[in-house]
């Protein structure tokens, strides 16, 4: 894995809870990030325009403009990666925010290590996959120039749909892809709600790509949200 230089990246925190803001500021500054914090949605949007952050950490439960709305308005003019902070009770909002364009989510309470990993992944993803035709994830190699997939040196035969799925995952490596996004991208907008297609293909893919399909290492399920490739 290539470690991209992410030190010094500018992060905007939008959260109404002082405790959380303080914690994040201390922890992220400690890790070398430049941090700005605001307590409300509208203020967050204004600040994003001025501060030009490299990444936004956004709480879903804001008192004024809701988190989903903030993502939507932000996406009107910016591609800045957004990580959602949510609690367990906000599953649907979380998915909506992801569908609206947020890049990832962390559920409160979260471990700092996990958050940092997500920040790094999002920043890396924002930097773009580059022009590399071959992407490697441990023993999983996706060669997009030749439409080849190989695991631990062995070629794997995939159906066209399976390959499209793997390619979509690989291009968005580390990012959560919602069910809706995957269905729309692979099968088309009419299939947005046919989750069982996805379940069946993920099952098939895992049997082909994972050494133990019950303990997948590459295609990770995000319960109630979607999948991500590691």
């Amino acid at each position, binding site marked *: 894995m290539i470690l991209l230089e992410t030190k010094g990246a500018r992060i905007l925190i939008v959260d109404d809870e002082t405790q959380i803001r303080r914690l994040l500021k201390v922890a992220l500054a400690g890790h070398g990030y430049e941090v700005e914090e605001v307590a409300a949605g509208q203020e967050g949007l204004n600040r994003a325009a001025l501060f030009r952050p490299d990444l936004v950490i956004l709480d879903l439960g804001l008192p004024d403009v809701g988190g989903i709305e903030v993502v939507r308005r932000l996406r009107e003019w910016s591609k800045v990666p957004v990580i959602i902070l949510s609690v367990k009770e906000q599953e649907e909002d979380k998915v909506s925010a992801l569908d609206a364009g947020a890049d990832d989510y962390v559920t409160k309470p979260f471990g700092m290590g996990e958050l940092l990993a997500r920040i790094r992944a999002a920043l890396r993803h924002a930097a773009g996959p580059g022009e590399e035709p071959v992407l490697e994830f441990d023993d999983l190699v996706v060669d997009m120039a030749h439409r080849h997939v190989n695991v631990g040196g062995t070629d794997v035969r995939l159906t066209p749909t399976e390959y499209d799925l793997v390619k979509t995952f690989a291009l968005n490596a580390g990012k959560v892809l919602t069910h809706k996004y995957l269905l729309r991208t692979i099968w088309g907008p009419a299939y947005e709600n046919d989750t069982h297609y996805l379940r*069946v293909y993920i099952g098939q893919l895992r049997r082909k790509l994972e050494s133990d399909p019950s303990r997948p290492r590459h295609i990770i399920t995000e319960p109630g949200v979607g999948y991500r490739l590691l």
Partner: protein
Amino acid sequence: MLREKRADPDELLACLEKENCGKLTVFLGAAAGVGKTYAMLEAAKERLAEGVDVVVGLVETHGRADTEGMLEGMPMVPTRKMEYKGRTFAEMDLDALLARRPQLALVDELAHTNIPGSRHLKRYQDVEELLTAGINVYTSLNIQHLETLNDIVAQITEVSVRETVPDRFLEIASQIQLIDIPPEELIQRLKEGKVYVPGQAAAALKKFFRPGNINALRELALRYTAQRVDRQLESYMRVHGIAGPWPTGEKVMVCVSASPFSAQLIRYAKRMATRLQAEWLAVHVDSPRRLAGSEAERDFKAKNLHLAEQLGAETIGLSGEDIAEEIAELAKKRNVSQIIIGKPEHTRLWDLMHGSLVDQVIRRSQGISIHVIPGHQEQTGLGTTWYRAKDSSRRDKAEALSPAPFLISAAAMALLTLILHPFTAALGLVNVAMLYLLPILITAARWGMRPAIFSAVLGLITFDFLFVPPVLTFTVDDVRYLITFVIFLLVGIITGSLSTRLKKQVTYSRQRETRVSALYALSRDIAAVDKLNEVLESIARNVADSLDGQVVLLLPNEKGKLELQQSSAQDNFLTESELAVATWVFERGQKAGRGTETLGAAEGLYLPMATEQGTQGVLGIRFKTGEGQFEPERLRLLEGFVGLAAMSINRIKLTEQARQAQTLAESERLRSALFNSLSHDLRTPLASIIGAVTGLLEETQAVFSPEARRDLLKTILFGAERMNRFVNNLLDMARLESGLLKLNKDWCDIQDIVGVAIGRLGEQLASRPLSIRIQPDLPMLEADFMLIEQVLVNLLDNALKYSEPESKISISAQVRVNRMETTVSNLGQGIPQADLAKVFDKFYRLNSPLQVSGTGLGLAICKEIIELHGGKIWASNTPAGGVEITFYLPVNPIPDKVLGREEGDSAGN
């Protein structure tokens, strides 16, 4: 037999001992003029001087000057003037008195009968109400007015007293003061005009106030008081455990028939029972041979049994072929020591024919004393009104005197005569006589006794006049024809009486059948129902249909106020005043309204629906038809209905209460479990967090080594994670229980769920050998992914916690028929068989040698989730040692458009 609820002396006594019931003091005298009222006023004045709030409710001075003098200065509640038959009467104003609520009320002449239109028929009922309201009462009474002494007094004085007070009423008196003066003095006072106003005095004196009479009455009064003192002494000895000769287990039984004479027997039995301090029963035997014929008789029977019940007897109704046998049998069964039976007024011939009942009972008595009381007709019903009986017997007569049967039988006779007359010679007189029996027989069979006799006499006359020589005269040549005449009459009488009896039996059994089937219909309707309004609805409908009236059902609301709950018709007759009557009935537990002795002016008749648990409510009925609306038969049916209704309402109430109590106990248990859990599961991690954090914060110099610091930080992390789990569990449980949780069902792959669950447990599970056996090609599940994942996480977490470190954990999933079974098992200690089901209870925790921390909610949450999905979860011990928890979820066929669509269609080559 339906027992009407009445004031039980014991209960009343018990009530009197409490402070909320008034105390009754009775000034008892042998006769009028002994100075009861005076003594009562004297005592009241003393109380007044002591500062007691005394009020005169009603005192009759009879114009006596010294009594009137005593009344001066006493606070009074003005009497109520009431019009009756053009005259004005002064009656005690009960409502004003109740509203005034004095400590002590004076009410003279306890035995007085109120003017029609008053609330109660009798004044003692007014007094009862005052006592119940907590007002003490002073009252006066002459011994002759006591119910059980009524007959004796009538025998002694030859003056029958109509106004009586039931004995039980005197039994509730906390004090009886006997007012006694020598007879000479009384007669002297009478002569001086101090007793009655002059004019009436002479007549009264002559008839009643003879020294012999007065002495006899004095004896009665003294004896009654002495008996009471005796009983008080005895109860005192009993209460204080003083040993003494106690009365033996005497039991008195009185045989009650449907004759007015039985009332006398009942009173005799009551006196005997009181004297012997024995229990007593009143028994009536119905025999098919002696089926209570007329309405009047049946009514007398009911009235007699009712009287016995009022006097404190246990009443028993039996039926059997052999009355004597039934009586003897019951006596033996109930250990009766004395039987009281009336000497019937039958002729010796009747006895010879039917056998004497008394003789039969005596023959079978075997060591039981039999008291045979000679009967004589009472002059009147002794204070009881019998208008109902009279009404119905008149109706019986009217039926019998309908002219049609007579006319028809006369016409038949005439027709027969016309046909037979030309053939006299050919047929012969014997055959003609035989043929004449025919119309008599038919008439008897069809219309009973009277038309039969009429027909027999008519036939006899016709036969004699037209056929028996000398023809066309009533004289008879041949004396042998007299035999023929006697036969005519006998045939008429015997056949007639047979058919009359048969008809009565038929009518009676038909009535019974109607009653029984009506009651059956109701009981069947309400037996299985456990919703109150449905039961009430069917009660109202059934009663209204069976009795042809309009029915209202009133039940108390939460505040105990009576409210209309159900009415058989759209508009009901419940006006303000009707509701007041119903409320009175509810409060007193006695029937009232039209056709009763209390509040008879009301539109409807109201009966309390009473059970042992108290009055459940009130049933009111307004009969539609004017005629015969208060027939005893209908009233009996109504009482049957009311009893049934009361029982079923009570049943529903009790069920409801039991259910609530259970729910309450359950929620109580849960609440305390929750508190325990909260205090333990939140405090323990908090304690470790705060401890570790303060330790780190207060570190001014580097006390802790880097490892120690790390340990402290780990402690904080574990504590926080534990609290997080706990809060999550509580929230999950709350969401599941609130019913707000909506299943977010979607197609899921169980393998995917297993994978996520394993990933969720991460480190914990990584140290354990894990066996995953998932049947290949399992169908998709339609379920809420996250909830099923939660179930698996909880099950795995549980399996980890209750097994030794590094022991194996297994997960398996397979399809059985149309269910997908998933099992999580460990190799931990088994669960006791009895607790296998309990592990899914909230806050249930296994006793485990392993130090297990948990909320006791995990498995309860699993159960809720699985059941929401229409599945089932259970725990069992594995043969290999260990515990496995299995759940299944229903498998539905999926819309199979995609499966295997691209099989073999590979990319890249």
